[in-house]
Each structure stands twice: as C-alpha cells, then as structure tokens.
C-alpha cells in the first residue's frame, strides 16, 4: 500500500513539476481553532490556505493543528511537527504569549517561522533571528498609530489593555506617540468578560477619550457593556478591537468607532480588489485583518519557493526577505529586523449594505517601521 501511495505521489509530483524548483515544502500551521479565540485562528487558517490554493503550487503541503490558545500545547505541537512531521516552516500563531514560547525552539532547530499576527517587542529587537519573519506588523505599530491620531483629537486619555505581552506592548506603543495626558492606565485580565468595574472608572476619570486594546471576545463584551453604561466618552482602539471577526457580534454599538489598521476592505489597490471577493467566494464571509496577514504570509512562502530551495534555509530566508508579493495592503516590504514597513490608516466602523465593516478615514503613517529594528543585530 505504502509503495503504491509513494508511486502515486511521485507521479503527481512529476506531473506538476513545471515549476523550476519542485522541492516539496511542508508547512506546519499552528493556530487557535477552539475556545474563545477560535474566530481569529479560523480566519488565519482560511487566509493562509487561500494564498496556497491560489498559487496552484502542488509541492506545498500544510498541516494544521489547534493550539487551544495554550502556550504549553503550542510548544508540544511545534516539537512534534518539526521532529516527526519534518516540517520546514512554521506559522499561524495568533497570540504573543504562545509565540514567545514557540519561536526560540523553532529557530534553534534551524526551521523558519513566519508570524501571521503575534509580534512581541522582544523578537523584533535584541532577540530577533534571521529565521524569524513577521508578515503582520510589530505589536506596537497599530497602537502607535492611535497615539498619533489621538494627539489631534484628545487631550486626556484613559487607556486599557489585557495583562499579557501584547497588552504591555500596546500601551507602550500608544504612549510612545501620544503627547497628551494619560489619566489612567489599566491592565485587565486576559479573557475577562465583565468590564463594569473598568467602565465605572472611565466614567469617573474625566478623560475625553478612551483607548482600549481588547481583541476577540474581550472587545465584544467591553463594547456592548460600554454602550449600555450611558458613558459617552468616545472609544478608539487598534484594528483588532473592531476587526471583522468581532463586528457582527458587537452590533451597532461599534458604529463610529475609530481604529487603526494596515488594511481595510475598501483599500484601493489591485491586489485587494482581487483578494476580498476571492475570500468571500471561498468562505462566504468578509475577511478580517488576521486573514489578510495570513494570506500575505502564504504569498511570501509561495514567492520564495519559486526562487529558492527550502533545503537551503539561508537562501530561502533571503528570498522571503525580498517580499516579492502583491499584498492587499498595498506597499509591503521588510525592515532590517524582518518586520514589515507599511502604511497605517485610521478607520471608522460603518454600515455598508447592512453589514458592519471598517472604512478608511485617513492615512496616519507612511512607510512605518518599528522602534526595535535598531536593536536587531542579526
């Protein structure tokens, strides 16, 4: 049986070896497919698979596993994928605390890691690695953009984020650009569902704006409760707080909210005009920012695979770094620390044909890198 399978695989491989480099590439996609964060993982997986499918490259195989948003599980899966499945590239982790647990082991075993979302400061600066790429952003970026935006609109901000690496990066990033007063800085619990205590403090704070970084279910809970509280202070946040995966569940309470993003559905470029309908046709829903980031990670691998052999990790990494792709985000290139340099926009939640979505209001940063690139010496 095994020999028949092998022969069949070989025949298939030969049949499709029109590409110059027909080296098979095995990718391990570890993401969150169960529990409260599953929506983010599903979008990551679907965006990534769309890029692979569109490439038509039959030499690429993807193994997907669920990390259940648990760092210890993610580490086990990564080890298993590297040692027994013999994957060449790992990708897909949504959460920074999981990424911090997985990436050092992956690069130590000479495998590539391409992050589709999580981008903790540590891995962008001193602990950067030639085999670690980030196709999304650096964690601080979208928060920096909101800090810059808030300078124009607000004088005194109430800022809050969950107590985990990306939450700390978030408030650090916001404060790096925001020049006004921070009336209060609050760290909430990861996965918290009731924000009454925080909303009461917002009411009493005297701030004229609220910056909240609350991805996934946390943002849904906060925005719904905030809308009911009678507090009228406007809420702004990074794109994750109002991304496409949570908007339907927040409902009209999100209307008018300003957020930052390196992509929006209405971004005017050829790649985006192709990507959005393709994603909708494939999955029957609008893509979120997580889908776009994973889509680009998939495109990066496809592009590098056309030029270099995965067996030569250094050459493959060099091809990845060229970032020869058409991103739905428009301009996209890698900084010296292999994190993106890209434009960042301010968006507003609007209703488009009865569907809540984000619309671009203005460009806040052009060719924005990150503050840690200078510390990356590798």
């Amino acid at each position: 049986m095994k020999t028949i399978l092998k022969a069949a695989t070989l025949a298939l491989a030969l049949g499709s070896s029109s590409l110059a480099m027909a080296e098979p590439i095995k990718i391990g996609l570890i993401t969150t497919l169960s529990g409260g964060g599953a929506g983010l993982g599903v979008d990551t997986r679907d965006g990534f698979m769309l890029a692979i499918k569109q490439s038509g490259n039959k030499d690429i195989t993807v193994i997907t596993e669920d990390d259940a948003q648990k760092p210890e599980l993610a580490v086990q899966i990564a080890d298993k994928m590297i040692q027994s499945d013999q994957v060449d590239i790992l990708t897909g982790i949504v959460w920074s605390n999981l990424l911090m647990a997985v990436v050092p082991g992956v690069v130590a075993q000479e495998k590539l890691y391409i992050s589709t979302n999580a981008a903790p400061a540590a891995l962008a600066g001193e602990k950067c690695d030639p085999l670690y790429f980030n196709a999304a952003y650096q964690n601080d970026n979208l928060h920096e953009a909101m800090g810059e935006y808030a300078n124009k609109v607000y004088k005194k901000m109430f800022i809050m984020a969950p107590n985990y690496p990306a939450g700390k990066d978030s408030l650090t990033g916001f404060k790096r650009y925001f020049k006004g007063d921070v009336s209060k800085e609050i760290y909430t619990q990861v996965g918290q569902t009731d924000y009454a205590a925080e909303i009461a403090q917002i009411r009493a704070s005297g701030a004229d704006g609220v910056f909240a970084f609350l991805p996934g279910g946390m943002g849904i809970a906060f925005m719904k409760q905030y809308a009911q509280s009678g507090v009228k202070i406007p809420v702004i946040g990074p794109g994750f707080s109002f991304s496409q995966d949570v908007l339907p569940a927040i409902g009209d309470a999100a209307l008018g909210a300003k957020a930052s993003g390196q992509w929006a559905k209405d971004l005017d470029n050829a790649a985006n005009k192709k990507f959005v309908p393709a994603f909708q046709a494939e999955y029957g829903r609008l893509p979120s920012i997580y889908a776009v980031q994973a889509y680009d990670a998939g495109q990066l691998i496809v592009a590098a695979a056309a030029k270099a052999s995965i067996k030569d990790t250094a050459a493959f990494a060099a091809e990845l770094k060229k970032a020869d792709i058409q991103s739905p985000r428009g301009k996209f290139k890698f900084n010296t620390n292999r994190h993106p340099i890209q434009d960042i926009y301010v968006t507003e939640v609007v209703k488009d044909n009865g569907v809540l979505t984000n619309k671009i209001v203005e460009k806040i940063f052009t060719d924005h890198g990150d503050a840690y690139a200078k510390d990356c010496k590798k």
Partner: protein
Amino acid sequence: MTFALAIEQLLNGVQLGVMLFLMAAGLTLIFGVMGLINLAHGSLYMVGAFACASVAAWTGSFWLGVIASLAAAAAAGAIIEITVIRRLYDRDHLDQVLATFALILIFSEGTRWLFGSFPLYLDIPAALQGAMELPGGAQYPVYRLAIIVTGALVALGLYLLISKTRLGMRIRAGESDREMIAALGVDIRTLYTLVFALGAALAGLAGAMVGALQSVQVGMGEPVLILAFVVIIIGGIGSIKGALIGALLVGVVDTMGRFLLPQVFALVVPPAQAGLIGGSLASMLIYILMAIILAVKPRGLFPAQA
C-alpha cells in the same frame, strides 16, 4: 473616589454576585442532593446563551430567547442526567470529574459544529436599553439592575421552593439521607432528574442574561464555572443560602479588588506599574479570600447538615 463611583462599583459587585449565584445554586443543589461534581454545568450555561441568541435572532424577541434558554438548558440537563450522569452517582468523584469533563468537550465541539467558531450576536431588549440615574447622582445600566432583580427573585423563589413545598421537602430529605427517602417510596430517580434540570435551567438563564452583555461563544462557560466552584466552596457545599452569600462576597470582593488595588499600589509605585501589580493581585484576590475562609471554617460559611 466619589460617592457615585463607590455606589456604582458596589452595584457592579452585587450584579456579578447575583449572576454567579444563578450558576452556583444549581451546582450546589446537584452536589448537595446527589453528591455529584458536575463540571459540565458551564456547558449548560453556554447552551442557554446560544439558545437565547439563536431564538432572539430568529424571532426578533429577546424574551422568547430567554424562555428558549430555560427550556433548552433544562432539556439538555435532563438528557445528560438520564443518559450519562445517572450512571455516575455511585462512582467516586474522579469518575464523575472525568465523565463530566468529557461532556464539556462534547458540548463545546457540538456547539462549534452547529454554530461555527465566530461569536453570535445577542442584544439587550429595547425596554432595558441605556442607563438610569440613581439617587446620589450615579448612573447605572438598566439591564444590570434587571439582572440584580431577576437574581433576587430567583433566590426568593428557590427559598420558597426548598422550604415550603413538597418537592423542596424531598430535596432536603434527599440531601440528608438518600437511602431512607428511597425506602419511603419517593421516586428518587425522577427527583434527581428534576433537580438536575432545575439546576441546568438556572445556569441557562444566567447564560442568556449574560450573553446579552458579552460575547456568545464556545467555551464561555468554563471561566464562570471556576468562579461558581469558588462560590460554593466559600458558601459551604450543598447550601443555597451559602451559595447566595458566597456569590455576593465573591462578586463584591472581585469587583472592588479590580477597582481599588491598582489605586492602592499607585500610592507607592508609578501608575503603569501599579496597574500591572494591582491587576495581577486583583485576579488572585478571590482565591486568597477562599483560602482564608477555608482556614477559619474548613467546611465553608454555611455547611449543609450531613
């Protein structure tokens, strides 16, 4: 800190407590009467929320959704009692924990299979939208007040049910001596199914009410379940009164901790640090409370007579 803020935070604590009570009441009844540890109680909460969200989306009425949540959770409770739980009464707690943990996984994946991975939308009914002015100048969301009132009514109803009705008498009898009540000719199997369905319906109601405040998603029950266990341990396992007092205590301590601790730390360290340390300590606070109470009263505040 102003008076209005203090009142608002106190109400927040009471509201969280009332919600926990709805979960803990069922959990403690089931443990008290049947001696069963039911980890799947959080799944029944999730069933309630999903039933409410889907019926509300389908009919446009939140109230029909609430009725559906009671019915769906009670039905789910009765079904798992008859098919799975019934076989576990004579087993030890480890078997019960294993089997009900399996139920959590089955419920979670089943719900994901039916409804998908993305959170559902459930909004507060129009009549309970917005905030109202309280004496003292505080503003408070009407919906949260409604949750407090509902919880108080349920507590009263449970008290009357347990202490004044024949069913309640049997439940109490079942709690004190299972063999004797069966020997007296009470149909203990039906009684158990009824109690289990009642506990499930309360969890479903909690899920439906909280679903309108947060996201209705797979796995939403487990964090609440942990808190509910803390509540019944503090209150004394098997005691409804203990569950009520324990729930209010946990609700108020948790809310006040999240609110006050960062401010206390802000007196000695910079605000950014204070937020971090205070926030971390606040999330431990109820467990510290539980440890202290258990050190003083090892069987909880109001242990049921055994």
